[in-house]
């Protein structure tokens, strides 16, 4: 009967080219994007576990204490590097390639090269992780990977840059959508960032405090000019796409993009407040952070005004729920970050748990949910399969939200109190450490909640890869009650494909 319905309702001719192009683009980019995203999820799980071990070690120092490979000084860099390069780099690259191919409406070029690149990149991260665990970390924060791992990470990125420019130059569309600006910008910014930062720190092109400046210029920008633009590009794409409305204002998009490009770059040095740097370099970082209010508010208006009047979609659409969570956390965490840069604020919160809370607000409240939203949206289109269980998506969402909020609130509160106590020399240091212990335990709890969410997502994701789910069916939404049991039931029935083939298909 499905066959009859379809034949009786032909697609309007005017829509056909766009639809056919879309199907072709999605089908063609499938192997590449699926490989990038599935490996990114592997590193996400790995990073979460490494983070959990570091977190437990902070309140129970004896935990796994006998193993020198996973002492705190090694496992914590592994946590951050696998989170930003493993999960972040691969998820963002997949997003970048898929969005660019879709928005340019052309097939993904150099597929084989990109696949090989993905394998090399994963090898590079594995090599880097083993290097750090063996004690060969460079000791430069966020650039800890030993130098022999760097070529593995740079070469695949060259492939991505080439593919991205190639797509943009051959694009079949006339208009350049705002997401594409951010994607193009990332491919220009990130190589400059990482190459100059590596040159200035690990290769020793400059000495002394200039190395520290280069290090924090990079450390701040890897979040702000790599993860953030990719996240914003995803939000700019997903929000209007799901609710079927145009983005609020083209002019605000312009203002947001260029002010972000101009101001973010300067913000890094506020990490060195109180350090032996010329005062003006730190003030420059503070001003850069304060000026970030302009792009943040502008992008916020653009996203939230687009959403205005469409909030009821949050009840049904998993993609939208993650995307809106991401864009709201972008606004909030950026406000927090701008204020955090002020010297008066840093006097209290510098070198406390507050900073850790803020980083996770940005990475797990803003960037990660947008990458999840991207995967929830694109995977059914790439694989022609539906998410197997709405309940698992629900678990993933609530674990992400609750775990993230618990983490951020516990760390920020503990950080402020810790900072105030540390500024009072009459309080013994040990008392301050004891005060933070309950909050460090809350953090471990938050980490466990986040891990639960990740595992729910992994189950859903792997069921899609192993084809234990619905094919060519209606989308899995929060309002549907699709469960694993339904799939077992379904496997006994004919698939829609078999119906179309008259029951002859495999």
């Amino acid at each position, binding site marked *: 009967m499905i066959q009859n319905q379809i034949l009786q*309702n032909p697609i309007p001719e005017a829509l056909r080219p*766009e639809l056919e*192009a879309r*199907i072709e683009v999605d089908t063609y980019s499938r192997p590449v994007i699926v490989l990038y995203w599935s490996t990114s999820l592997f590193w996400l799980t790995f990073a979460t576990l490494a983070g959990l071990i570091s977190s437990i070690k902070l309140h129970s120092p004896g935990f796994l204490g006998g193993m020198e490979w996973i002492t705190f000084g090694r496992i914590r860099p592994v946590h951050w590097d696998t989170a930003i390069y493993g999960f972040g780099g691969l998820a963002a690259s997949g997003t970048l390639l898929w969005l660019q191919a879709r928005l340019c409406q052309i097939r993904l070029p150099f597929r084989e090269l990109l696949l090989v690149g993905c394998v090399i990149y994963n090898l590079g991260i594995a090599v880097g992780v083993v290097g750090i665990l063996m004690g060969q970390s460079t000791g430069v924060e966020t650039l800890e990977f030993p130098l022999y791992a760097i070529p593995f990470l740079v070469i695949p990125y060259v492939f991505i840059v080439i593919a991205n420019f190639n797509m943009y130059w051959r694009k079949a569309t006339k208009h350049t959508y705002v997401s594409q600006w951010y994607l193009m910008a990332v491919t220009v910014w990130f190589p400059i960032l990482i190459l100059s930062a590596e040159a200035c720190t690990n290769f020793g092109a400059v000495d002394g405090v200039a190395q520290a400046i280069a290090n924090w210029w990079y450390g701040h920008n890897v979040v702000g000019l790599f993860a953030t633009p990719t996240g914003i590009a995803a939000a700019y794409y997903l929000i209007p796409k799901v609710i079927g409305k145009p983005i609020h204002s083209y*002019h605000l998009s312009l*203002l947001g993009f260029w002010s972000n490009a101009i101001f973010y770059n300067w913000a890094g040095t506020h990490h060195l407040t109180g350090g032996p740097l010329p005062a*003006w370099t730190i003030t420059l970082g*503070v001003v850069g952070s304060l000026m970030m209010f302009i792009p943040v508010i502008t992008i916020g208006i653009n996203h939230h005004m687009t959403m205005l009047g469409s909030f009821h979609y949050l009840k049904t659409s998993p993609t939208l729920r993650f995307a809106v969570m991401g864009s709201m956390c972008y606004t909030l965490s950026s406000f927090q970050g701008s204020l955090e840069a002020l010297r008066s604020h840093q006097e209290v919160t510098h070198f406390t748990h507050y900073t850790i809370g803020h980083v996770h607000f940005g990475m797990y409240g803003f960037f990660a949910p947008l990458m999840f939203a991207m995967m929830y949206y694109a995977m059914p*289109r790439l694989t022609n399969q539906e998410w197997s269980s709405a309940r698992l998506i629900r678990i993933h969402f609530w674990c992400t939200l609750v775990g993230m909020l618990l983490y951020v609130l516990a760390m920020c509160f503990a950080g402020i109190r810790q900072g105030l106590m540390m500024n009072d020399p009459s309080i013994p240091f040990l008392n301050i450490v004891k005060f933070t212990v309950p909050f460090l335990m809350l953090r471990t709890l938050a980490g466990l909640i986040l891990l639960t969410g990740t595992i729910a997502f992994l189950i859903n994701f792997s069921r899609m890869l192993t084809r234990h789910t619905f094919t060519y069916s209606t989308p899995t939404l929060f309002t549907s009650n699709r469960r694993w049991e339904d799939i077992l039931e379904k496997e006994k029935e004919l698939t829609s*494909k078999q119906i179309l083939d008259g029951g002859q298909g495999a």
Partner: protein
Amino acid sequence: MSEATPTGGAPNEVTPPNPDAIFALHSAAMREASEPRDGIKPTPVSYLIMCFFWVLFGGWYMGYYSGEFRANGLNERAVGGPLAAAPPQNPMVLGKEIFGPCMQCHQETGLGVPGSYPPLVGSEYVLGDKRRLVAILLNGITGDLVVKGKTYNSQMPSWKLREDEEIAAVLTYIRASWGNSADSVPTNLVTTIRKELGDKGGWDAKSLAEFAESKPAAVTPVEAQATK
């Protein structure tokens, strides 16, 4: 998976259309809207004016906290004239801060641990010759040491990497806390002894005693002046 690959091309009118392609086309049409577009809502002028003033504020802030853009200016509010020297810190307050790591062995009470870490309270080494006390802190000491008639055996590391001012402050602090009441240790004494010791290694009880009996090198007024 390959079975489901749609051809994507225009359907041939002669042969019956590929059912996969038809189905893919329908599911693509049903499940999503067209690619997103840009809206053209105007930006409020008031908002642009606010952004403009915010940038102006940024410029003022940069200048106000620039420390006159000096390469060696660590104080963001330094204005005019030579750089003001940091005001001298109360050595008792600074010393208490510096004492943090010392507590691990000598304890918060300054009583030490019997057998391993000698007490600071009433110790002849703390209250006696300042020159010997500074020498212990700078180079560290290892092996048997008799303090207040009891023998202690452990290792004290060198604290050479600390600033002279910090060493003087922590010594002043331990000489005047927990009932101790000896006079303060001046910073220039630490400077002199540091110079005198050069890159000498750690002490033991014997070499320390020899050092304490040796004549102190004369502190010339010029050197003392230079350290201020």
